[in-house]
């Protein structure tokens, strides 16, 4: 590029911009102060969103969009029933998450069993993980939710909520088992050697030495999958569970207005963002801990 670095008050460079202060220019402080950075961030944020907002509200279709998506009247009338139906989603993801954490761990442990004796176990669990990660979740929900009750077998549940929990558990356990497995494999084999050398059985070594370290390492990705699960609870509306998404659809259809969807989006944001921040915090804490552990 330009052979001579620009100097203060010097000539313009090839593109016509004023030259930047070079090494011989007046010395500036090392960087903006913390307060200065905050101010810059604040101003740039306000300017950015101000401009975007201005573009949106001055667009020709804005009054119509505002009426369809941001109607205060519809918001007030749909808010209570939407939040109430979110309770169904909360039950779904809480029950499913507990089952997922257990089933995922069992699958991961089965897949990690060594030796030829356990080949059938490894094969079955591998097939399970492959299949349930391949099939889109909404299809699993459809197939289980309509298929199994459709068999008409006596004594099997008919409530869609039951199949919603089963389907979400099966889909997410496949993912979560892989997270656990990565954690198990990240524990150095010398840890197992040390445990076994004390005379602990393979199961005891797993229970007391391998798993506690493995699970601790994968808490952030587990939380990440938990957030995914929360959002995917809306998929079960397809088999007739009246949860938040179904409820907002009903409200939308009743009012010919999309504001209920915005309400639903806000509810998910309100629940998910704290969890996302918690995940970030846990990752940062782990990093700090590892760094501390690296110092002798």
């Amino acid at each position: 590029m330009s052979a001579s670095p620009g100097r203060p008050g010097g000539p313009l460079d090839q593109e016509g911009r004023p030259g930047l202060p070079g090494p011989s220019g007046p010395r500036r402080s090392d960087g903006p102060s913390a307060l200065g950075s905050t101010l810059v961030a604040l101003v740039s944020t306000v300017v950015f969103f101000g401009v975007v907002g201005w573009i949106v509200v001055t667009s020709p279709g804005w009054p119509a969009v505002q009426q369809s998506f941001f109607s205060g009247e519809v918001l007030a009338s749909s808010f209570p029933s939407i939040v109430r139906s979110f309770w169904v989603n909360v039950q779904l993801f809480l029950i499913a998450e507990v089952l997922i954490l257990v089933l995922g761990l069992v699958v991961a442990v089965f897949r990690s069993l060594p030796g030829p004796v356990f080949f059938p176990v490894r094969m079955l669990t591998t097939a399970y993980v492959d299949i349930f990660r391949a099939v889109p979740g909404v299809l699993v929900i459809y197939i289980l939710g309509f298929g199994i009750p459709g068999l008409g077998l006596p004594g099997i549940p008919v409530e869609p909520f039951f199949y919603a929990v089963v389907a979400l558990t099966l889909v997410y356990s496949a993912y979560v088992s892989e997270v656990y497995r990565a954690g198990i494999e990240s524990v150095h084999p010398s840890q197992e050697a040390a445990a076994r050398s004390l005379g602990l059985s393979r199961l005891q070594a797993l229970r007391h030495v391998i798993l506690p370290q493995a699970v601790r390492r994968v808490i952030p990705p587990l939380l990440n999958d938990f957030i995914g699960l929360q959002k995917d609870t809306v998929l079960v509306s397809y088999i007739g569970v009246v949860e938040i998404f179904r409820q907002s659809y009903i409200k939308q259809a009743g009012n010919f207005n999309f504001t209920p969807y915005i309400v639903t989006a806000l509810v998910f944001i309100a629940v998910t963002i704290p969890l996302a921040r918690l995940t970030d915090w846990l990752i940062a804490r782990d990093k700090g801990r590892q760094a501390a552990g690296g110092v002798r």
Partner: protein
Amino acid sequence: MSLTGRALVIEGLHKSFGKLSVLRGIDLAVAEHEVICLIGASGSGKSTLLRCINLIEPVDAGRIFVEGEEITARGVDVNRIRRRIGIVFQAFNLFPHMSVLDNVTLGPRKALRMRPLEAEERGRTLLRRFGLEEKALDFPDRLSGGQQQRVAIVRALAMEPDLLLLDEVTSALDPELVAEVLNVIRELASGGMTMLIATHEMGFARDIADRVCFLDAGRILEEGPPERIFGAPREERTQQFLRRIVEAGRL
């Protein structure tokens, strides 16, 4: 070779990893209270030999007896055997998620099914004996390398083993931390612990060993009392090895 009165007898031990033959016919008998130092270049098979005795590595051929019982026999309960044989590793291998005391008591609690209070008392007594009492509730990463290795030794001792295997336990330590660990081993030797020690610390081996075995290419090429092995080695390979050690200033 008589099995009685022997803490450990090894006959014709072979071990390969794939095509790499690491142990090629090891014969060794260790009397009770005897301290044996294994010396030899890296890759000569010292660590593998210790790992085979602890049954961490399955052996390909040959037999190992501990206190007269063949531990390489088919159908033997490896967990029961390992409880009788302690091993300390070069890299400590402490459990990072447990306090020092939990590290030490895990074996007694889980493998020996000892009551927690009893295990804790045994652990604290041992920690006190080796000057680690104040570290009992610390986590391993808060300790110096020398302290960690002493904890690892205490962890092995908490099982009250018949035989202790030490695998280059000072090789991962800063020079100034080596002495504190060697002193612990000296104390164990004077207390009559039967030990098999793989080491690069030749001065230490000369001091502590009842017998020194020089391993070369998976065989015990020469063995004898330390004065003879270090003073007048017969085999050319032993002489070469010791010359290199002297040149490196390690003896």
